[in-house]
């Protein structure tokens, strides 16, 4: 141990550059720590930059400023309603009580700012416990990338969302491509890139040092079982040793791109991650090696991903968000040609039905790919993946004049599909879906006032008919090392591993297997990242002799 040639010695080392990591770095620096951030890839931003960049933060001051009220007990009851008993109440309360304080601090002291997207309500608004007016989701304000100088070139690109805010239709709604073009020309970014840009600027303002192309590989432990540093490896394969006087914060993303880990922990393979390919479980493996307790390991931020196969991102076919499953003129069927769920549920919930097991036929009938079946009416009305209304359907979209022909083309049971569409069209006539209750939940008509039969039940009747595969995707995994209320990693004895912290997708989601609304990923990630940074900066470890 005495012979280690340290490359650098700092108080706090943060792995990763997404929302959790940069929030941790800001908090640590503001509490007097010297901070070093290590990023595995050639770009800053991680999963956050690739996302909508929206944090979900109950009781936040932006809501109050807009005249929307929120209530602590109601929030806690709502989260507990979604967790179904699979999260610790103390962690829920910690998130609810600290989150809004942290976002107030980020606004006032770090110029990390948001707006309440008035046109974008809560996903589960139809539940009794949900917030009815306003939203707890926060929309990052547009950010001028020139403010971070040359680092702007290293901010991860976001091919998923156009440079519009949530309120401007960046995620749902009609896109003004003229505004998009202007923003691109002027280097103005929004959503995930905006959030990372403003967080990173706050890090630069605080003297936080960031190194690219260097991945954390192994924690260095002291004789008292505390973390005293880290072995990292550059993209050229050179090992470097970094000393952390106060702690190491693991915030380098999930494990959705690591086939060995997804096979070991998840119910089914995530064939189409909607995230940067660097998320290979580095933090999880480091934490396992030092005895971290794990939690929420079979879960992910699920997404029913779709694909325009002509696009690639970092040498992989790019999974995209798609569209079209929650309005009229479409249904989703399994390989048997049967509907199997309410098609317009939240993106996190629909894939959970892919895992249903049929104990009679001994199969997973809904295993992806499942199929979005739609007609020309939907094709004429909506942008679906990259297929624009008015343009001819590209050759990667299966289409046919009849449902029989379409089913045969894509390998779905034709007799069942024809029967299922006839049944669906009948439900549309009676304006009620007794099978899966389309037209009843908020998410299927999110920005249009919630689901209702008029908006969501429309016949599939005008040819040609189309079929698009829907794959099991995820925005990231959310299982990992279990943490306490200060972001400290807990061991199997229930004790904190001194000097080791985790946050974001590199940790177990403190709220368990839930996605409460837009930003359900980034909200807890930033809050527990911040708490980890704050705690690490203030901690004096009982050190072994080094």
């Amino acid at each position, binding site marked *: 141990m005495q012979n280690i040639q340290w490359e650098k010695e700092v108080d706090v080392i943060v792995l990763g550059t997404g929302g959790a990591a940069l929030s941790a770095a800001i908090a640590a620096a503001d509490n007097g720590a010297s901070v070093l951030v290590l990023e595995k890839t050639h770009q800053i931003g991680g999963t956050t930059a690739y996302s909508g960049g929206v944090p979900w933060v109950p009781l936040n001051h932006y809501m109050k400023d807009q005249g929307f009220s929120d209530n602590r007990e109601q929030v806690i009851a709502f989260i507990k309603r979604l967790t179904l008993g699979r999260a610790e109440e103390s962690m829920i309360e910690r998130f609810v009580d600290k989150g809004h304080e942290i976002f107030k601090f980020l606004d006032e002291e770090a110029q990390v700012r948001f707006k309440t997207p008035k046109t974008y309500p809560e996903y589960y608004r139809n539940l009794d416990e949900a917030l009815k007016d306003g939203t707890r989701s926060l929309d990052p304000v547009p950010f001028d990338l020139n403010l971070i100088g040359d680092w702007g070139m290293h901010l991860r690109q976001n*091919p998923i969302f156009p440079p519009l805010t949530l309120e401007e239709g960046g995620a749902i709604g009609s896109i003004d*491509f003229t505004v998009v073009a202007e923003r691109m020309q002027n280097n103005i970014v929004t959503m995930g890139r905006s959030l990372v840009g403003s967080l990173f600027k706050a890090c630069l303002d605080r003297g936080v040092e960031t190194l690219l192309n260097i991945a954390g590989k192994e924690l260095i432990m002291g004789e008292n079982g505390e973390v005293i540093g880290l072995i990292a490896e550059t993209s050229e394969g050179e090992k470097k040793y970094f000393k952390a006087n106060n702690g190491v914060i693991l915030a380098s993303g999930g494990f959705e791109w690591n086939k060995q880990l997804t096979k070991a922990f998840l119910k089914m393979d995530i064939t189409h991650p909607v995230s940067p390919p660097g998320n290979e479980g580095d933090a999880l493996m480091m934490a396992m090696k030092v005895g971290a307790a794990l939690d929420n390991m079979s879960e992910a931020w699920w997404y029913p991903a779709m694909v325009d196969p002509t696009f*690639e991102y970092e040498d992989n076919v790019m999974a995209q968000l798609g569209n079209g499953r929650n309005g009229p003129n479409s249904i989703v069927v399994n390989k048997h040609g049967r509907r199997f769920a309410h098609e317009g549920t939240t993106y996190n919930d629909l894939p959970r039905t892919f895992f249903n097991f049929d104990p009679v036929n001994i199969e997973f009938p809904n295993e992806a790919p499942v199929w979005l079946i739609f007609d020309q009416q939907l094709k004429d009305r909506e942008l679906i993946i990259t297929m*624009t209304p008015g343009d001819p359907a590209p050759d990667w979209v299966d289409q046919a004049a009849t449902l029989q022909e379409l089913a045969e083309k894509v390998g779905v049971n034709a007799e069942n599909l024809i029967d299922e569409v006839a049944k669906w069209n009948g439900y549309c006539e009676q304006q009620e879906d007794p099978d899966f209750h389309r037209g009843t939940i908020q998410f299927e008509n999110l920005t249009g006032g919630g689901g209702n039969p008029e908006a969501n039940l429309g016949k599939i009747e005008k040819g040609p008919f189309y079929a698009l595969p829907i794959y099991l995707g995820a925005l990231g995994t959310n299982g990992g090392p279990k943490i306490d209320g200060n972001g400290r990693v807990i061991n199997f004895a229930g004790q904190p591993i001194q000097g080791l912290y985790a946050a974001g997708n590199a940790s177990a989601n403190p709220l368990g297997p839930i996605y409460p609304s837009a930003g359900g990923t980034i909200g807890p990630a930033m809050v527990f990242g911040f708490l980890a940074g704050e705690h690490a900066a203030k901690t004096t470890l009982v050190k072994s002799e080094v």
Partner: protein
Amino acid sequence: MPQGTHTLSVPLSIETIWEFVQDMNNWAPLVPGYIEHEILNENESTWAFKGDLGFMKKTVKLKIDIKEWNEPSAVIFDLSGLSDNFKGGGYFKAEKVSDNETLMTGNLDITAGGMMGPMVNQILVKFVPQTATELTEAIVTKLCEDNNVPV
């Protein structure tokens, strides 16, 4: 309108350059991101290539219609997207400087249409001139290698 023009001096005669350029099969694989092409007739061909847009790659299919074969100094063509909504054109021009020196110019001009046109054109503003430059340089390099002259 995203467009790019790139000119290089080539230490070869204009006839040598024409002989190379007039057969599409000679230079098709030099198109950045080339996947395949099919010659339909003397003037029409279809192409597939993977464009590197920096933050992602996009496979496109397009059709090229040769408008003019002006031996030995110019090939002028139109192009239109088969997989995506865009159209444009371009040319190769050769200008004799001496018996052993020719100025070679490549030009591309592509405009995306449809709903996403304004956004796509912002991406093409960088991509099109870069592609024109890379293609012209690749052709000149190949010509020089084939004729054993320094680039």
